[in-house]
């Protein structure tokens, strides 16, 4: 009896599929090549670390002299980032639904949407900035549009990934009542994915604030310009002040995200 059952014992290792082996070999060789590139040598590291501290030291203490101008820029950036991200998130949700295996109406639509989202993400910000400056002119609107595109590229991808991970049981339960696809989505996919959507969306807000540099490109000002100017004139203490200010906002956004998620997880 025990013998009989032992014949069913899974082997310790199963022969992996050829494609898996091939994938692993490719990964390892690329990784190894990359490592040789890195050219790691530790002889200079110690002086390097001393240098690094010297550099960091030059930024201390942070210089608060321009704090009111900086705060103003931050406030402005925050507003624009908020508007752009809100629209981006709102657009991302339907796009993600079209791009997910379990909610897409058709696999062709899915592939096309995915490709589109990847494209939005791959085309650099600079190009988007150019395109929007040309079509709507300089100013916050071009910035908002760039942020919207950025947000869709990011959020639609992550929303879709989460949607595909949602257990299918509850959705089937709704489907079995004769619910339409839209009903299943509103009744099961969205509530179950909600904690994750909140996290991703608020991360997107944060991301938009951090990448505020593009606002400068389109002549919309904001904290990005402040930061890059501080660098150009090598005012590291002022740069540090700006980074700290951004960090405060970033952490605040993260706290909001946590608080909302705690409720709905």
């Amino acid at each position, binding site marked *: 009896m025990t013998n009989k059952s032992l014949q069913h014992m899974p082997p310790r290792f199963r022969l992996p599929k050829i494609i898996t082996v091939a994938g692993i070999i490719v990964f390892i060789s690329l990784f190894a090549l990359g490592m040789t590139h890195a050219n790691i040598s530790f002889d200079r590291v110690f002086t390097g670390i001393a240098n690094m501290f010297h550099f960091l030291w030059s930024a201390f203490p942070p210089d608060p002299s321009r704090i009111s101008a900086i705060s103003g820029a931050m406030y402005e950036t925050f507003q624009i980032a908020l508007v752009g991200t809100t629209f981006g998130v709102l657009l991302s949700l339907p796009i993600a639904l079209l791009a997910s295996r379990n909610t897409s109406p058709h696999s062709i639509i899915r592939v096309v949407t995915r490709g589109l989202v990847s494209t939005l993400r791959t085309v650099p910000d600079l190009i988007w900035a150019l395109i929007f400056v040309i079509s709507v002119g300089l100013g916050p609107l071009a910035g908002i549009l760039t942020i919207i595109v950025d947000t869709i590229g990011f959020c639609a991808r992550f929303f879709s990934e989460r949607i595909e991970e949602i257990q299918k049981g509850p959705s*089937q*339960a709704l489907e079995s009542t004769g619910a339409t696809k839209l009903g299943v989505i509103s009744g099961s996919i969205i509530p179950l994915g909600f904690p994750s959507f909140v996290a991703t969306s608020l991360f997107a807000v944060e991301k938009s604030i951090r990448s505020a540099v593009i606002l400068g490109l389109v002549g919309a000002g904001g904290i990005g310009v402040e930061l890059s100017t501080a660098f150009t004139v090598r005012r590291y203490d002022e740069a540090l002040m700006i980074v700290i200010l951004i960090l405060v906002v970033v952490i605040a956004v993260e706290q909001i995200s946590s608080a909302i998620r705690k409720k709905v997880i």
Partner: protein
Amino acid sequence: MNALSVREVTKTFKDGTNALEKVSFDIKTGEGVVLLGHNGSGKSTMFKCISGFETPTSGEIFINNQEITRLSDRRYRPLRKNIGMVFQNFHLIYNLSVFQNVLFGAMGQNRNFLKVSAPFASKLLREKAMACLDRVGLAHLASRRSDQLSGGQQQRVAIARMLMQDPELILADEPIASLDPKAGREVMELLWEIVDERKLTVLCILHQTEIAMEFGERLIGLNKGRLVLDDEKNNISKNDLNSLYYDGIEELSDVQ
């Protein structure tokens, strides 16, 4: 008329498991039938095939004489509205309220989502949801998040959601497995009341043979994916039932 007709349905999973082998049976409208069988005999798989979540490897299934075996989702949807399911593991939307979960049972009748969402549903629907909850004894827990219920309470919510749907054909997968004896009996009574009064059709998976014998007018038995029993209650002996679980299975370890 046959509410449900299963013709030589075979289901082989991708890994080669034969969950169903040429199973055929008919259920007439207004009948209340119990489906029995050992663990892994293919009962839930049968239900999944009927409700279209699995496609049979071969064979056909008819609902009200319409073939549904390979119907697209879009085409199947209008029919699904009339089929109420209770799932073996409830499948509630865990982070929504009990009330909202029950309201969702009416999704088939109300294609506009707002009409079945708790804040915007009509007074009628909301009251109906409360009535359904009341029938399974959970009215007082309507506002609770559904993952803050006990196991049996969750199963009752699943039953209430099914009731909300006003189905013509009920497929209940072990609907009383987690219920206490009194509640279990009451739910069975409820289901058979529906069959008797409203001439609906119920196909119910059970493991409790006594309850099966008490309620089911007709019993269907599966063993290792094959139909081995299909008869009126009166023709079935205790032995028949025992052999359903023991026949051809020497030891527990051979159960598929």
